[in-house]
């Protein structure tokens, strides 16, 4: 599948120089684009294909709760000066270059990797790039989607193409069926724990197997989203009827005869049975459990009931030093499971787990329960559309009744650029994608987990196995 998409987008194949790869869709946000637009301005260039470029505001956007229905003052009123300047700069650049922008008060605003799929912009077989490493999310549709730097954002704005070396291929097959209480986030955390944060460097991952096929589109996005946390350039899942059913009728999905033509092309994308991968990894779904991270990168994860590894048992001196430092930073004890560890904050949201199904999962645990005393729980929908859908089925009321904050869409405490952040020393159970030191606020400690596990922690105030809480579904 990767080779089919790659080959179809080769403007020039690689030789001494990298391949020139045509780009179908370029997604833009406020943080990694201003210097790229400035580079164009310095050369007197304009965006070449604004019709294939879509922008949103997400990273710096405040998510303070507003009154029901989103009425009240513009969220812009609460942005700090630097953030406002960055948002204003994006608005000005988009206007100057004729690029569609889903701005802070727009009804389709949201996290870039949430709105692309929900608008139907993301199609199987596309090349999609964005100045954001979690662009791998869109690979859930069988697109080749990857993060780029700001220099490359300028390249794509100016030419709608990129210079790229062909990556290697890695297939990760998850056989069997997931046990109850084990979800997509647990699958990808288990994969990263298995292959390591550099385990897929230089590779495009294809996720395959019965457990992957059984996932809905939102769960597939969760898996592909964190491909970068294993070092991969991209992650892909072959499109199938689940994919096509998700896409049908979306605003930017093909319609009528164009749909039929697209469908024929999309059905030809899946990997041929005799295709060779440069590397293969296989996991058994039945052996997976809810996962939590105990350290300071996403590869430092374990089953929630498994003991945190002891540095004394690590042979490699550098790895031993890294684990020792990580456990000291996290104030986590080796040799015991993380279960029962006290929690200060719970964050449900992000491009990893900020979609409707994620909010439903968290609500299934919180319904009829209360957030534990002393715990702050934030629920941040991934987009305005997710927020509306959640409110239509009363999830916002479930969260509020439980004592959680129902906030407005944005990246929020995943990257902590907008004021939503941990105080030094606080520990969060978070549905986001990175537990790096200080990621959620300087001195903050992050435990990555699924929405079920995060909600369970909110209820008990401790790291809790969601399988031990009775859930009304």
């Amino acid at each position, binding site marked *: 599948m990767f080779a089919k998409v790659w080959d179809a987008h080769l403007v020039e194949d690689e030789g001494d120089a990298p391949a020139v790869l045509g780009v179908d869709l370029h997604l833009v946000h406020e943080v990694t684009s201003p210097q790229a637009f400035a580079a164009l301005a310095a050369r007197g260039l304009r965006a070449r294909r604004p019709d294939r470029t879509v922008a949103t505001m997400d990273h710096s956007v405040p998510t303070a709760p507003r009154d029901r229905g989103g009425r009240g003052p513009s969220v812009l009123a609460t942005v700090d000066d630097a953030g406002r300047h960055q948002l204003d700069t994006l608005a000005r650049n988009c206007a100057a270059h004729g690029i569609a922008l889903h701005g802070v008060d727009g009804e389709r605003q949201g996290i870039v990797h949430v709105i692309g799929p929900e608008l139907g912009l993301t199609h199987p077989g596309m090349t999609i790039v964005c100045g954001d*490493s979690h662009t791998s999310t869109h690979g859930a549709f069988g697109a080749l989607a990857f993060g780029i730097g700001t220099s*490359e954002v300028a390249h794509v704005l100016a030419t709608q193409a990129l210079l790229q070396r062909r990556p290697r291929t890695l297939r990760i097959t998850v056989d069997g069926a997931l046990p109850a209480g084990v979800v997509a986030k647990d699958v990808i955390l288990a994969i990263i724990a298995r292959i390591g944060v550099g385990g897929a460097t230089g590779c495009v991952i294809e996720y395959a197997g019965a457990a992957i096929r059984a996932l809905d589109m939102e769960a597939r996005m969760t898996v592909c989203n964190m491909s970068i946390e294993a070092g991969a350039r991209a992650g892909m899942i072959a499109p199938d009827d689940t994919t096509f059913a998700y896409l049908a009728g979306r605003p930017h999905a093909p319609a009528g005869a164009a749909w039929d033509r697209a469908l024929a092309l999309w059905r030809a994308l899946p990997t041929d049975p005799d295709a060779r991968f440069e590397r293969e990894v296989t996991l058994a779904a039945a052996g997976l459990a809810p996962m939590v991270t105990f350290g300071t990168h996403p590869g430092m994860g374990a089953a929630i009931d498994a003991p945190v590894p002891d540095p004394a048992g690590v042979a490699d001196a550098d790895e031993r030093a890294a684990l020792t430092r990580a456990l000291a930073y996290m104030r986590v004890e080796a040799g015991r499971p993380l279960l029962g560890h006290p929690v200060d904050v719970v964050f449900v949201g992000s491009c990893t787990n900020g979609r409707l199904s994620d909010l439903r999962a968290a609500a299934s645990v919180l319904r009829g329960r209360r957030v534990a005393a002393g715990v702050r729980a934030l629920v941040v929908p991934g987009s305005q559309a997710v927020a509306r859908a959640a409110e239509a089925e009363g999830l916002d009321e479930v969260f509020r009744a439980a004592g959680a904050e129902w906030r407005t869409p944005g990246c929020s405490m995943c990257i902590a*650029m907008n004021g939503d952040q941990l105080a030094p020393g606080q520990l969060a159970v978070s549905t986001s994608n990175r537990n790096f030191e200080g990621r959620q606020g300087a001195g903050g400690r992050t435990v990555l987990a699924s929405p079920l596990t995060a909600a369970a922690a909110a209820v008990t105030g401790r790291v809790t196995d969601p399988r031990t809480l009775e859930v009304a579904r």
Partner: protein
Amino acid sequence: MTAPQFTRVTSHAASLVADDVDTDQIIPARFLKVTDRAGLGPALFADFRAGYGAAWPLARPDAAGAQILIVGRNFGCGSSREHAPWALVAAGFRAVIARSFADIFRGNAVKNGLVPVALGDAEHAALVAAVTTDRGTPVTVDLAAEQVEFAGRSAGFTVEPFARRCLLDGVDELGYLQARLPAIAAWERARDGAP
């Protein structure tokens, strides 16, 4: 805009031999609310250094003025922020020597004249030993020869050939791509099925 150029640099080296140093450690997200790329030097490792306290290696007097930074495995993993190489360059670094790099960081580095040098484990260990024994050890990164020289030894490395040529000759990548616009437009017409 002029393309960055690099041929060789000789300098003493600063050592931060840790693995999996992610771009959030290189420059925390709160410093990303800028709309230009200048002045990010003080943001470099702004929070990561706190974990080292007085032992922060880049604060050593003998690390001052170093143009070469020695790190461990998988340097620059995580976020795609190009602010990471911008901050390293603003702090005076011209080359980073690692056991391995994350892909996006490696690509961002060369576009800013920061040479990512990946050494084999034995050669990396020898370099770390040499600069630990004598912090003033001059280290040369020679991009033309793809060699690192230190303490009478030399170790080979490779940089992606096109990126290397761009750095050696000052080739502007965007200009190179712009020269391919006719082919890009032709590819688009074929894709879109237009006549």
